[in-house]
């Protein structure tokens, strides 16, 4: 339950679903926003995590 990656993905999932339903009305638009937001948060966090290796 406290696996860092799992928690990050779970958080990204909840937030993506939330904003998809808050900001979009059609199922297609919701799916698009969900996909974009989830990918940006999930992939972006992993990339940022790797980049931070270079920062002492």
């Amino acid at each position: 339950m406290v696996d860092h990656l799992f928690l990050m993905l779970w958080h990204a999932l909840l937030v993506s679903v939330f904003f998809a339903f808050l900001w979009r009305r059609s199922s297609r638009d919701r799916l698009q926003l969900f996909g974009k937001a989830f990918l940006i948060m999930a992939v972006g966090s992993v990339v940022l995590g790797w980049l931070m290796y270079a920062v002492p």
Partner: protein
Amino acid sequence: MTKDSGRGGGEPDGKKAPPLLLAAAWLVPGIGHWILGKRRRALVFFAVVVCAFATGVTINGELGTPRPGEPFSWLATIACLGNGLLYLVRLAWVNGLSGLLDGLPFGLNGGGDPVSVGFSYGNTFLYTGGLMNLLLVLDVSDIARGEKD
């Protein structure tokens, strides 16, 4: 001026959302949308906020409570207070009903375990759940005023 379609494009017409509706929307995530007939959205919002809150509590996150000399604790309190009844029930669970009343405003225990691995993650989930519910209250206000569908 004609009213734009979509979100908030028109001139404000002074119409106010019913305070009771906003209070209900704050207390129970999604109920404002449910009352306004947006049933599907209401269920999703309820599930998302409750899942975020439950995750935060499960992994030993601490609810924000005001502490003297710590201004940021007020921000954490506002964020967590956004969870509505979930926040109040959890505080009552941790402090007991009498402790809840006696501890106001600075003696409340927010629960959680600072040495737990999930502590900061838990806090993040609790803040996120509360902030999402505050956004829902604003959304309900917009819908009730006819600014948004």
